[in-house]
């Protein structure tokens, strides 16, 4: 497999949280979705990838260990918190980017802004959240990046904008030299477009595989409230019970307990994420 990015034994310690050790890769030419609930470590992993924080372990870019910040020239980043100054109008954003990126393409940038409906006279602080995301995306796509790294890009976007956003990502990977890594807890978007899934929970890797395979690895069992007590903890990946029913997440192929009244179905990514690790 040709990997654009590889993490080997990534570890980052904070007072209240430790990420890792975490190893995963991002295959070239595809969209990889980094998923996990809030606090799972998605943003920490992405910040490490962008060298925004120090970390233990190895980061390989195009198969080689990173030795300096040069690799970032070909990485377009869209972060949850904007890194642009609020007072800047688009001309100032353009000037700042031209300093930061050797291959900055001002013409491409303003063409994107026009397509996204952002008037050049607007200041960053005057933009809605959706517009800010689009502005960051316009920046990310205007300096010859062949890797887009996006941290929770779709949270706060309305469904129409999310749809548009997904179109842009798909357009980007139409060129098979381009790669996308995006983290999200909004899984509908991913369900539609991600090729690979990296699923982390409490700082550790749970699964990393093609999305279709990922979705086939799990089963959702539904039953009455008594079901939770009848399931052995060995087979349970997560469970949620209410007064009227039980939802249990198990591996595909797990035999149901004899005589149990269970409805089995293929869970959505969201179900997998919300049930995983949950105790009754």
């Amino acid at each position, binding site marked *: 497999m040709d990997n654009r990015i590889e993490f080997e034994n990534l570890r980052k310690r904070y007072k209240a949280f430790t990420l890792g050790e975490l190893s995963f890769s991002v295959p070239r030419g595809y969209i990889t979705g980094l998923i996990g609930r809030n606090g799972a470590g998605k943003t920490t992993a992405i910040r490490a990838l962008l060298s925004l924080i120090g970390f233990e372990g190895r980061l390989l870019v195009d198969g080689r260990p990173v030795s300096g910040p040069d690799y970032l020239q070909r990485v377009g980043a869209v972060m949850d918190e904007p890194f642009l100054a609020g007072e800047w109008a688009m001309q100032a954003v353009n000037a700042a980017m031209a300093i930061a990126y050797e291959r900055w393409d001002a013409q491409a940038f303003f063409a994107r802004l026009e397509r996204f409906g952002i008037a050049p006279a607007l200041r960053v602080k005057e933009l809605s959240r959706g517009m800010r995301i689009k502005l960051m995306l316009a920046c990310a796509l205007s300096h010859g990046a062949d890797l887009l790294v996006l941290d929770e890009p779709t949270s706060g976007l309305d469904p129409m904008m999310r749809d548009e956003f997904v179109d842009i990502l798909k357009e980007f990977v139409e060129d*098979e030299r381009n790669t996308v890594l995006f983290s999200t807890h909004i899984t509908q978007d991913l369900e539609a477009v991600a*090729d690979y899934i990296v699923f982390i929970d409490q700082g550790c890797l749970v699964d990393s595989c093609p*999305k*279709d395979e990922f979705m086939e690895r799990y089963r959702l069992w539904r039953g009455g409230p008594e079901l939770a007590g009848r399931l052995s903890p060995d087979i349970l990946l997560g469970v949620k019970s209410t007064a009227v029913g039980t939802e249990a997440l198990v591996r595909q192929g797990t035999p149901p307990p004899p005589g149990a009244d269970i409805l089995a179905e293929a869970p959505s990514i969201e179900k997998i994420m919300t049930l995983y690790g949950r105790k009754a």
Partner: protein
Amino acid sequence: MRIVLIGGSGVPLFEQIKDAIRENILGGALPAGGQLPSVRELSRDLKVSILTVKKAYDELEQEGFITTRQGLGSFVRGDNAALVLEEKQKKLEERLLEAIRLSKEAGLSRQELLSLTDYLYEDGEHGQQDRV
């Protein structure tokens, strides 16, 4: 070409894509030698994973419906006339079996079913002309 995907149908997406393309080939919407959209184009248009479309194309290739030429793209095979005929025959057999089952349920004799078939066959030819 027309591809309509149904979410939550229980049929995997790659299978739906594969079936749809096969229907397009059998129905003539994709003629022999015709070029299919690239895997990445179709995956963009359908908003599904690239790997999902790739799997559909791989299986269509294995089954002899399409051929992929490195760097050029995927094409409907020109030598698949026998295959198309075979598929149509398979479909015909399925429908006939269904008709036989229904006629048994309805208590029709074999002769009655055959006469009905004869009648509809003739009528069908005229019916075609009557249709606007």
